[in-house]
């Protein structure tokens, strides 16, 4: 883009005023992506003809009087959303050649709003990871430091927005996969309430927690996009049959008197000192804006990690049983019989982290282990959800760090599998309880972005966006951008 770090709100004004056309925005975005992406690896499919055609359509619509804040604005999709005629791989060898014959509801709704899809973003394979290192297409690099991870699983989406390839990318969040990469890359990312956004056409990982959301520079932009994404979908039986408010309407409301709960467990030994100080300063900023800070407790925070890593792999093992090499997806060469076809297609088609989780999930769902692990985890899940609900009776929102640290280095061999799982300790609770949560940039530690997470009551997205917007009016952390001028690709 000629103005690579512009917000959607700003681009919409420029488009309306005729200062720039949708086609020009798309051409600039493609040129910037072709220059920077060889190093970043944030984008794994560019749909140039489709993007230019959609941009021309948007320009024609605007010329005939159509207007919408999203009309002609470029976007990228996490490669977990089915896009008609465009590769949808979920960053897996299993789906490397899969071309869906239909659009996900999220994709359709954003297309209908006039947004222009540039292509697809890299991600952790089947959304299983917190570093974007499990992708079949290779790791994504963090635009703030190319030796570090962008977070995951929506790491490509976060890196693409942070690098100014697009003003918005879609993401999905099963255990923190929008919020943690948003925090690591210095952007704003919203995980809506479970059921707020349709899951139709979104490749399933853990169906009782998966939820799609926007990743953008500002809360104001996230509100604009959520207006278009949200709503009941008869094609998703778990989507909530509730009206969608105008998320932009309440952004300017004062947060005077707002009660913000700070769980002591979010400032535990897991938390890096620099992140703790930065998030504490951001909480003080909310207080200065009139919020009332309240100490609260979520004693089962640590148990959330165990609970999540039983439930998510169990659901994944069932969801991923559909990949058998028969109807679509990877098939091994010259199978000797049907069993050989199943075994080798799955063993060769899935990556190591995906197979690890399928194994654990298969084990915890087996008859001998079901009560000890799966049933127990579902019971603990209720205890955790009730803790959140109890706290949210006393406060309006819960605030804390989005992640225990800033972005860690790529290929960090010192982290064990369970160390990696602990990265999700602060984000998992909102998924287990189905609550909305947003991550906003609140500062830098050693040149790396830090995110603050706000968790709200069910269907309380408007309030989260209001608070985040009020924070962003008072601060400029969301306006900081990484220096990428040395990158030539």
């Amino acid at each position: 883009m000629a103005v690579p770090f512009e917000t959607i709100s700003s681009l919409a004004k420029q488009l309306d005023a005729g200062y720039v056309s949708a086609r020009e925005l798309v051409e600039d975005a493609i040129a910037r992506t072709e220059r920077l992406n060889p190093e970043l690896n944030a984008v794994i499919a560019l749909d140039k003809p489709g993007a230019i055609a959609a941009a021309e359509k948007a320009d024609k619509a605007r010329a005939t009087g159509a207007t919408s804040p999203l009309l002609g604005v470029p976007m990228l999709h996490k490669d977990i959303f089915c896009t008609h005629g465009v590769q949808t791989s979920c960053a897996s060898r299993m789906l490397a050649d899969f071309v869906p014959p239909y659009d996900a509801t999220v994709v359709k709704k954003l297309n209908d709003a006039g947004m222009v899809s540039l292509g697809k973003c890299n991600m952790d394979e089947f959304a299983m990871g917190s570093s974007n290192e499990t992708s079949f297409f290779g790791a994504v690099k963090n635009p703030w430091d190319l030796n570090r991870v962008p977070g995951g699983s929506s790491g490509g989406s976060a890196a693409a927005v942070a690098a100014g390839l697009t003003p918005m990318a879609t993401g999905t969040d099963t255990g923190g996969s929008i919020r943690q990469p948003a925090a690591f890359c210095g952007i704003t990312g919203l995980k809506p309430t479970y059921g707020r956004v349709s899951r139709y056409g979104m490749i399933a990982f853990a169906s009782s927690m998966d939820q799609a959301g926007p990743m953008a520079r500002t809360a104001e932009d996230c509100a604009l996009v959520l207006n278009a994404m949200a709503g009941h979908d008869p094609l998703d039986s778990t989507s909530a049959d509730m009206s969608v408010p105008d998320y932009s309407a309440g952004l300017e409301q004062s947060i005077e008197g707002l009660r913000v709960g700070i769980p002591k467990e979010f400032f535990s030994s897991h938390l890096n000192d620099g992140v703790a100080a930065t998030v504490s300063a951001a909480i003080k900023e909310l207080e200065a804006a009139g919020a009332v800070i309240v100490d609260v407790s979520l004693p089962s925070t640590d148990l959330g990690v165990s609970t999540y890593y039983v439930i998510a792999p169990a659901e994944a093992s069932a969801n991923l049983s559909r990949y058998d090499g028969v109807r679509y997806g990877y098939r091994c060469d010259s199978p000797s019989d049907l069993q050989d076809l199943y075994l080798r297609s799955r063993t060769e088609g899935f990556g190591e982290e995906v197979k690890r989780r399928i194994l654990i999930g298969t084990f915890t769902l087996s008859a001998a282990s079901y009560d000890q692990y799966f049933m127990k985890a579902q019971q603990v899940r209720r205890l955790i959800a009730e803790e959140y609900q109890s706290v949210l009776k006393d406060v309006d929102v819960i605030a804390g760090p989005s992640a225990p640290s800033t972005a860690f280095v790529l290929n960090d061999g010192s982290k064990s599998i369970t160390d990696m799982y602990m990265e999700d300790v602060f984000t998992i609770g909102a998924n287990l309880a189905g609550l909305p949560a947003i991550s906003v940039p609140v500062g830098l530690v050693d040149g790396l972005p830090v995110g603050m997470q706000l968790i709200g009551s069910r269907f309380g997205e408007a309030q989260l966006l209001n608070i985040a917007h009020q924070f962003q009016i008072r601060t400029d952390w969301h306006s900081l951008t990484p220096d990428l001028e040395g990158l030539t690709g």
Partner: protein
Amino acid sequence: MTDAATVRDVAALARLTISDQDIENATAEFNQTLALFDALSTADTTDVAPMINPLDSAQRLRTDRIETLVDRAGLMQNAPASEEDYFLVPRVLD
């Protein structure tokens, strides 16, 4: 602790193969993950109902009417092997 034989059995249930070279490491990782789950036993879940869905909502049923959402030809284009409208797999019956 789970042994290598059990891990192999689980892999077979999941239609995955673990090589002889990888089984030791896979078993160690498996046990490392199970150890993380030990914490669950500390929670008192007496009389606590399992939470299957975060909204505790029941499955909604739609009207029992056939709807065609996707074109068959588009779906068949992704088939690794097909003939006419059928997916091809290795012969099952001799």
